[in-house]
């Protein structure tokens, strides 16, 4: 496996206050990697650097071995809130990224339409987002993200706003879909179970300033189903991660 994304010694401060401190992590092609950390630890700041919204104070970000500045537009970003535009019908929200990239609306629709079924949105393409349930909104936001055909998906707490049951359903669903498409994913979450269930590897961030305090490989067999929760290995990794997080808090 090649290193799709490498973050090396990343530092970023705001007005002299460090938010990211000597941060390093790797994501290989086709890997599902999670960042787990307390709220406000700088997880989202990391994403802002990756999407180019912020520039790092020092350190480097490499995509396929070359600096990020030479490889713009490699990441598809899904923000914490679904950020579906309420005035665009669902289909027009899904094609947004393609349209911004310069694709004609008609072509963009052709590209999105075959995916509607996979994302459970068939029949809802011509309604406004306000008419969708929470789970459907998140699936729509994810579809809008993946259809851009970027090399790495950056998912910022995509299920954070959902109720526990819907969230569990979404995790099952995304695992199923990921098995099929094998996107390279970097996921931010503060849900330990979610991180273990979905990831190949989990990076634990410290509270501010964020740095990697632990990196845990999740070598559970795939595809994972509800049964995975009962796997002793699952429980062991989960409690190990939780302990690391709680120790860091002190």
């Amino acid at each position, binding site marked *: 496996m090649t290193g799709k994304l490498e973050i090396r010694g990343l530092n970023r401060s705001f007005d002299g206050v460090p938010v990211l401190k000597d941060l390093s992590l790797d994501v290989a092609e086709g890997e599902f990697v999670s960042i787990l950390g307390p709220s406000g630890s700088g997880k989202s700041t990391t994403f802002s650097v990756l*999407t180019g*919204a912020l520039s790092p104070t020092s350190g480097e970000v490499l995509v396929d071995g070359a600096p990020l500045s030479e490889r713009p537009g490699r*990441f598809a970003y899904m923000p914490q809130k679904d950020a579906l535009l*309420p*005035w665009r019908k669902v289909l027009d929200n899904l094609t*947004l990224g393609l349209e911004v*990239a310069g694709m004609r609306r008609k072509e963009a629709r052709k590209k999105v339409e075959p995916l509607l079924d996979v994302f459970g949105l068939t029949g809802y393409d011509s309604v406004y987002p306000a008419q*969708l*349930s929470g789970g459907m909104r998140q699936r729509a936001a994810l579809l809008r993200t993946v259809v851009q055909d970027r090399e790495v998906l950056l998912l910022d707490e995509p299920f954070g706003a959902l109720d526990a049951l819907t969230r569990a*359903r979404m995790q099952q669903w995304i695992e199923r879909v990921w098995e099929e498409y094998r996107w390279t994913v970097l996921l931010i979450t503060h849900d330990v179970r979610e991180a273990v269930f979905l990831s190949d590897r989990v990076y634990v961030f410290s509270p501010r300033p964020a740095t990697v305090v632990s990196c845990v490989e999740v070598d559970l067999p795939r595809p994972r189903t509800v049964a995975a929760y009962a796997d002793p290995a699952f429980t062991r990794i989960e409690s190990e991660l939780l302990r690391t997080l709680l120790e860091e808090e002190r």
Partner: protein
Amino acid sequence: MSAPKTALGSRLRVGRWLPSLALVALLVAAWQLYSASGALGDDVLPSPSRVLGQGWEHRQALLDNALPTLRATLAGFALSLTVGFALSVLIDLSGVLRRALMPVLIVSQTLPLIAIAPLVVLWFGFDLLPKVLLVAFVTFFPITVGLVEGYNATDKDSTALLRSMGAGRWRIFRTLRVPTALPFFFAGLRIAITYAVVGAIFAEYAGATEGLGIYMQNAKNSFRTDLVLAAVGVSAVLTLALFALTYAVERVALPWRRPQSRKEDRT
């Protein structure tokens, strides 16, 4: 998906208007009774029935003068929308422009119209132009402020999302900031429209050859208080009609704001 129009729905609508209709009826009745008592002469306070009757009799003259006023109002409002939007774009574009423009715009709104109107007529004559300018002058401000507030209400996550997609400033402005601002714009538009007809009448009052303003002035000078009030009624109807029109336009322009049912999840 839109709510079906049921008998209950229309009954509720009537119910909503009932209190204000009742209040107006009560006031008109009191006015009618008071003027019928003859305490004040017809040239001082004519009865509502006389205002209506005389207004109907002079309907042709009222209509002939309402049309120029409406024309000035609409032309002025069109100018106001253009200028109001252009200013909002400039203010949104840069902090320097915002700091330069906003104080000037606010001060412009403190100028007394009663002093400005005759000057504008003096400068631009008795034709349509000074009226258009005055209507725009009294109505652009709520439109600009509404739009600027609206741009600033743009969701940060959505902005970050569009940036990550590679959107530039102009793309973000038209795809995100303008649609976000539209509900704010309509709020400003409704405030502005209530000033528009009054602004046109004011301009005509300061000098015109036709229009409700000059009609009122002439009627007053010949002690036809009833016709002054009839013209006032016509101007109120004009304003109400334009006000209602903003709701109709908003309904068409912002279909996503209409109440809609939510779908159940079927994950």
